[in-house]
């Protein structure tokens, strides 16, 4: 199948600002309220004013889907943008949005694009979905009557297949959980900060074998945002610009029975993004990989080529993916331990790592970051390679 490439990105567009709301429980805020808060933080971080924003990308929260959400958000922020899209690829959205923003600027549609996503899955999903409905999964009719309900069961089927094909061990899935939690313990804005051991992992209850509770990501309220503009413009702004070096997507299937499940779209999008950047895996200083489950982290390390296919299990052991190791992965604590921010905090964390502002969890001298997004049951995948300016 034909796959487009894109040298367009290299060094011409930058992330100029990022915003992350707190992820604490108990603050009663709407998704729109969290989105507004994240947008304000990103605009202030960039040293811009809202008058500078002429493009906006977002999508309605899963917990409360509605018509024209991006335009509603735009209106709430007092904007009347010249470019807007409701952009929705599940967890692959943020990385894809950075590339769409750059493409829109390259095509002369706008100059400065704000991406925002916010959710209230933790505190408001139940009450809102009861009265306002929820976003339909799409293939529930061929899954739910047969007992396949919600993502953990579907990803468990994927992980089981990987175990069968490659001999991946439970303690290796556990190693991902322990490492990611350690990183969250260094992040003041994380839902789960108490470090865990492999014993804690094995003591956590079964959800859907081979997954225990500590294999699964959190349910969260959050707002995250970032701003994309040209590198030339970003250089005049407050924060050190972080350049978009390479970007690519690959979406191999939709329904769980159509996929290989022991590999993902990174096998295609990875080489294309690295090719556009003129870089390889050995250039990556920090990787923020979409971690809806422990298995997803392990799988992507293989599919991006940090290790051979089937060697993800041994790769994640012995602290290799922990700060101080060969390849620190999910330095913010990821979806597993920081918050399920649908991938937007993977991107904002990468930007802060490349700025060198991560404090205790900073990867020394980080110059190149790999960020990924994944949606559905390994159905959508997006790759972003960012570099310190």
């Amino acid at each position, binding site marked *: 199948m034909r796959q487009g490439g894109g040298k367009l990105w290299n060094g011409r567009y930058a992330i100029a600002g990022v915003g992350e709301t707190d992820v604490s429980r108990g603050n009663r805020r709407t998704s729109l309220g969290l989105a507004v808060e994240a947008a304000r933080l990103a605009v202030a971080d960039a040293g811009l004013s809202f008058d500078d924003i002429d493009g906006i990308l977002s999508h309605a929260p899963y917990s409360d889907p509605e018509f024209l959400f991006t335009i509603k958000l735009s209106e709430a922020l007092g904007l009347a943008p010249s470019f807007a899209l409701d952009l929705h690829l599940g967890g692959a959205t943020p990385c894809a949005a950075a590339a769409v923003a750059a493409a829109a600027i390259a095509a002369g549609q706008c100059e400065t694009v704000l991406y925002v996503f916010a959710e209230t899955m933790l505190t408001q999903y139940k009450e809102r979905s009861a009265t306002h409905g929820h976003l339909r999964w799409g293939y529930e009719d061929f*899954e739910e009557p047969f*007992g396949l309900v*919600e993502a953990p069961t579907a990803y468990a089927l994927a992980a089981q297949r990987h175990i069968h094909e490659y001999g991946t061990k439970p303690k290796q899935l556990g190693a991902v959980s322990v490492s990611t939690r350690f990183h969250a313990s260094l992040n003041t804005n994380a839902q789960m900060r108490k470090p865990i051991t492999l014993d804690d992992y094995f003591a956590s209850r079964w959800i859907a074998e081979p997954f225990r509770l500590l294999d699964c990501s959190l349910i969260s309220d959050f707002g995250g945002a970032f701003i994309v503009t040209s590198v030339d413009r970003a250089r005049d702004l407050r924060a050190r610009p972080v350049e978009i070096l390479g970007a690519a997507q690959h979406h191999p299937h939709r329904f769980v029975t159509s996929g290989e499940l022991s590999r993902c779209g990174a096998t295609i999008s990875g080489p294309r993004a690295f090719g556009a950047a003129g870089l390889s895996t050995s250039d990556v200083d920090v990787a923020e990989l979409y971690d809806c489950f422990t298995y997803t982290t392990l799988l992507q390390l293989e599919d991006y080529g940090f290790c051979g296919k089937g060697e993800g299990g041994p790769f994640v052991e012995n602290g290799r993916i922990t700060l101080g190791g060969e390849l620190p992965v999910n330095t913010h604590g990821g979806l597993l331990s920081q918050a399920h921010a649908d991938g937007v905090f993977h991107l904002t964390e990468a930007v802060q790592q490349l700025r060198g502002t991560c404090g205790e969890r900073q990867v020394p001298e980080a110059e190149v970051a790999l960020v990924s997004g994944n949606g559905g049951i390994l159905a959508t995948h997006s790759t972003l390679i960012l570099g310190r300016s």
Partner: protein
Amino acid sequence: MPRPLLPIADADSEPFWQACEESRLVGPVCTDCGAWSWPPSPCCRRCRSQAQEWRELSGFGVIWSFARVHHAFHPSLAKRVPYIVGLIDLDEGLRMVGRVEAGDKEPTIGARVRARFEEQEGRRFPYFELAPGRREEP
């Protein structure tokens, strides 16, 4: 109470659900290139032809993957957990999601299964039970 876990038939899927009520397993096959599609879709995934017909499936297949579910993700599953969900490779060459009834045996990838039907909430649905034999994978 959340909505029940019941399918809503549409123009693409209705023949499947109708056959289930008669305890028959059927699937859509392309009359141009012979490929099976799953789940039901308005065109053949291989050749995009919209010429499809519904044919009877043998109901025999093997487990491609499985998961033992312990958490009741829906109130109606509380009585059922732990139960096993599988991805079943049917002999005809299509893969379906299906509950696996293994009794006191351990399901394994490659184990042979056959379709049975059971009643849930007044409707009939396929599930798979272990059958003699297995398929060894390369």
